[in-house]
């Protein structure tokens, strides 16, 4: 079955991963800007990173027949440096008209701090001003529920970003309803230790339905699996769910969300 991984940090992966993903049916990935494992020190450091995301990475993905899309921001972990964050936000528009850029992301909260909230709101301001889609990271573990509620509160402080143009990521059993009730798209991340398993993701689909929801691997430099979406497909098949239902979650839903971006161009597989 063809699938799209709507959240995977391919700059941290080797070309063999693109090859394996393609062999498993992956036709496209979207890659949010994220934390590199260390705090970067300058706006120029991010400028180089955004060049990698918008220039080299789509080329490298193309070698394996995978279409590559991306999202731009400074992530929540680095938002504690407010001055640097403001410099990066000011620089982002240099890249917004590049092919493959889908919007602003993954912005959000990490430890739910006041500085993170400040920079999250300023990213939202940029997204509203430039009419960009928004991809939101929600915190992990003990911080997730509170952080997800705070994120929704901040989204609802303004009325110029419609909920259907926002994707709230890393939802789990206790936050999926918060996102869906707000009218937002949401995604479940299949990540071995801190997020969701394929079986729990399938449980959530069975409880909350298959509308406005997708699954991703969030594969990165940590212990993660860029072929996690096929594991979810297999779990759904084991349970007897229809191919049409599975395809909706792993292929059609990401496309429906991405197509709201005017720059989005996609070549369907033959």
């Amino acid at each position, binding site marked *: 079955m063809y699938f799209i991984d709507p959240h995977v940090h391919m700059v941290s992966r080797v070309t063999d991963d693109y090859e394996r993903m393609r062999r498993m049916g992956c036709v496209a990935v979207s890659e949010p800007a994220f934390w590199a494992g260390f705090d970067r020190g300058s706006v120029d450091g991010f400028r180089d990173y955004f060049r990698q995301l918008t220039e080299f990475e789509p080329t490298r993905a193309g070698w394996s027949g995978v279409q590559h899309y991306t999202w731009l921001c400074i992530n929540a972990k680095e938002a504690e440096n407010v001055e640097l964050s403001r410099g990066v936000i000011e620089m982002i528009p240099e890249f917004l008209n590049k092919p493959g850029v889908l919007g602003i992301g993954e912005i959000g909260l990490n430890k*739910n701090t006041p500085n993170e*909230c400040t920079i999250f709101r300023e990213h939202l301001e940029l997204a509203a001003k430039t009419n960009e889609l928004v991809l939101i990271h929600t915190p992990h*573990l*003990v*911080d*997730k*529920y*509170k952080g997800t*509620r*705070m994120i929704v*509160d*901040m989204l609802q*402080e303004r009325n110029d970003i419609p909920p259907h143009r926002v994707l709230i990521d890393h939802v*789990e*059993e*206790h936050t999926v309803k918060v996102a869906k009730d707000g009218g937002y798209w949401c995604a479940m991340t299949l990540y071995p230790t801190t997020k969701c398993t394929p079986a*729990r993701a399938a*449980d959530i689909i*069975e*409880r909350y339905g298959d509308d406005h929801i997708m699954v991703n691997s969030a594969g990165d430099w940590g212990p993660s699996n860029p072929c996690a979406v096929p594991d979810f497909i297999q779990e759904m098949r*084991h*349970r*007897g*769910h229809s191919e049409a239902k599975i395809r909706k979650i792993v292929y059609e839903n990401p496309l429906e969300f991405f197509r709201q971006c005017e720059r989005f161009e996609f070549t369907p597989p033959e």
Partner: protein
Amino acid sequence: MPAKTADAILDRHFLELRCEILNLAAALDRIERSVGFDGVRDDGRVELLRQGIDILRTGGTDRAERVQMLFSDEYQAGWNQ
């Protein structure tokens, strides 16, 4: 709703659930027989684990959600007012 019957799901998952309970039991044993156990006996995390196990012993279809909430920071409505 799940596409399979409860009986089929139990058949499929019984051994892995048994394994997960054993892993939990062994980890709790490991903590208790290790040096300095008295210092963590009243650790809040141990109490949270006990409460999580209590949730598993209840019925319903939302145990995973309740376990998630047990391990979550409290949200205060109106924090941004």
